[in-house]
């Protein structure tokens, strides 16, 4: 097949806004091109043509120099967008992919400040259990009320739904920052492990102190105790055949503050409807 030199100036490129145009390959079937090419509604707005930096009947066009600058910045920007998911995905229990870790570190100042440093793990890799914070509130001595229990989040208390979701995210965050109160003898032998544990523990304690202090202020309480709860997901058999509800107390367990396994809470200790009276 020969290539017509007359077709070279615009390479048969016709586009609409969505980039639906076809950049016709010189090797493609010319009849097919004719069938599928959109009729040019306006003269070809070639960005590199003369007067490209002026306002024309075709609209306001970007000067060619600015286009080059913007394309370079765009490339850098999307490297920043990609840096965090790549690092996130290359993580294992042993290590993070070194090139992605380096790549992520390079773009960290940019991606973190712009708040584009996300892994985009929505409901992934699997939908998991929900985490809650149970707050046992001991009122001040002058008050006659007995201790109350507040749950973060609580859909009966936290409304509108977005507010509820903020508290839910806080509970998940609090759980994710958990560091055990003590570590085993075996772990103590590893100085790196001890160093990281001490750092995590300090952050966790700081966060716990902050939440307690805030609740003390809002609840005018004397003492507040926090417990981390986990609500497991029931399977379809339990719900449809055995009649469990999604908020069945049997699905909730209190998570241990040490490195031991979580203990199942007896039903009578669970936060009941009493927390409807409490508003943080």
């Amino acid at each position, binding site marked *: 097949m020969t290539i017509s030199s007359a077709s070279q100036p*615009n390479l048969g*490129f016709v586009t*609409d*806004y*969505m*980039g639906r145009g076809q*950049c016709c390959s*010189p090797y493609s079937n010319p009849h097919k091109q004719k069938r599928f090419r959109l009729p040019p509604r306006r003269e070809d707005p070639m960005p590199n043509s003369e007067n490209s930096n002026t*306002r024309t009947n*075709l*609209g*306001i*066009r*970007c000067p060619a120099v600015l*286009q080059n600058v*913007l*394309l370079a910045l*765009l490339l850098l920007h*999307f490297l920043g*967008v990609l840096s965090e998911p790549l690092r*996130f995905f290359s993580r294992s229990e042993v290590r993070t992919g070194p090139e992605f870790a380096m790549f992520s570190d390079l773009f*960290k*100042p940019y991606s*973190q*400040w*712009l708040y*584009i440093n996300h892994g*985009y*793990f*929505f409901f992934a*890799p*699997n*939908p998991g259990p*929900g985490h809650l914070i149970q707050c046992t509130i001991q009122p001040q001595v002058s008050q006659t009320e007995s201790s109350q229990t507040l749950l973060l989040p609580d859909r009966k208390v936290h409304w*509108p*739904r*977005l*507010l509820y*979701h*903020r*508290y839910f995210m*806080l509970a998940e*965050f609090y759980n994710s920052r958990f560091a055990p109160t003590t570590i085993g003898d075996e772990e103590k032998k590893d100085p790196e492990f001890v160093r990281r544990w001490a*750092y995590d523990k300090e*952050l966790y304690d700081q*966060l716990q*102190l*902050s939440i307690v202090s*805030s*609740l003390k*202020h*809002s609840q005018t309480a004397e003492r507040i105790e926090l417990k981390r709860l986990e*609500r497991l*997901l*029931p*399977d*379809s058999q339990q*719900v*449809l055949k055995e009649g469990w509800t*999604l908020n069945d107390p049997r699905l909730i367990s209190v998570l241990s503050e040490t490195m031991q396994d979580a203990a199942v809470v007896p039903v009578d200790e669970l936060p009941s409807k009493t927390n409807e009276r409490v508003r943080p």
Partner: protein
Amino acid sequence: MIGPFPVPMVDEAMAVDEERNSESFNVAIRHFFFTPSSAHTLAVIRICTGAMIAYIHLVWMLELESFMGPHALVDNASWKALHQGAVPDYKWTYLAHTDSMAILWGHELLACLSALMLCAGFFTRTFAALTWLTTLMTAHRMTGMLFGLDQIALMVAMYLCLGRPGNVWSVDQWLLHRWATGLLNRPWGRVMSGMPTLRLDEDGCDTQAPDCWSNTFSTRLIQLHLCVIYLFGGLGKLRGEMWWDGSAMWYSIASYEYQSIDMTWTGHFAILSSMVTHLTLFWEVSYCALIWPRWTRASTLAIALLVHGGIALFLGMFTFGLMMIVANLAFITPQQMRTLFEKRQYRNEYNS
């Protein structure tokens, strides 16, 4: 006679082809990002995003003392320990350096007001930038309380700053047409609003705001970022066995913390539930490829509407689901958007 293969000629032909291909690629890229387009799609995204961000700030303000200030759930000391401690990061916000409730209230009110102005399209360029910046400051301060909604809202707001979403369906446009000699026609007014100088047509009437390359550029950034989000969202799901054995849908709706409408009856239809799981998985992974061709775009957007509509209605994240749908509007052309909302005007123009 079979002679030696004419290698130099092939090389030459290939070099010519490569040159042509690179030239066409260059042209295609420039067309893709810089072909001037009207602002109708961005205007709809602007209105929805402005309203959503205003709502986000309103909800922060409902219990502002619990979220910021001296008695915050994550107080300034904890914030500093998390972000400026032994492992510092690059998050910075002036809200983490003040305990003054007056400043914090002022910030949130300003953010809310900016978002409303963005929604209305009043001095759009200025308020788009202000909305993005104030919301970013809030997001940096609210460590531990953010989720997908904040990510998407900030992403869209950031890209709106680059376009001219106020050129149509905005107060700016109305002002410009009503008072052509007013403040929006002064240089600083045009800079702050992002409005162009209107020209008079042959009859002496104002013309519509011209198409602009920055509208295309801004829309393309939203589209590409959305593709990255879906690609990695899908790849993340590929790592989970529940998305493969078809039980992920059940376990998503069986989460009491997320549930807003009881959908456990779907457990009676295990095959249907599994099919929905797999459809979601394959749709999300292939979104970045299927959204571009014309013949698959409509179905890809329809599934996006169903998935995010489902999240909004049944999984208790109405705001997040809605914001994802708004971001997906970037794939509707300005012409389609205009046809959708200005049908009557089009008809009148046609009749006249």
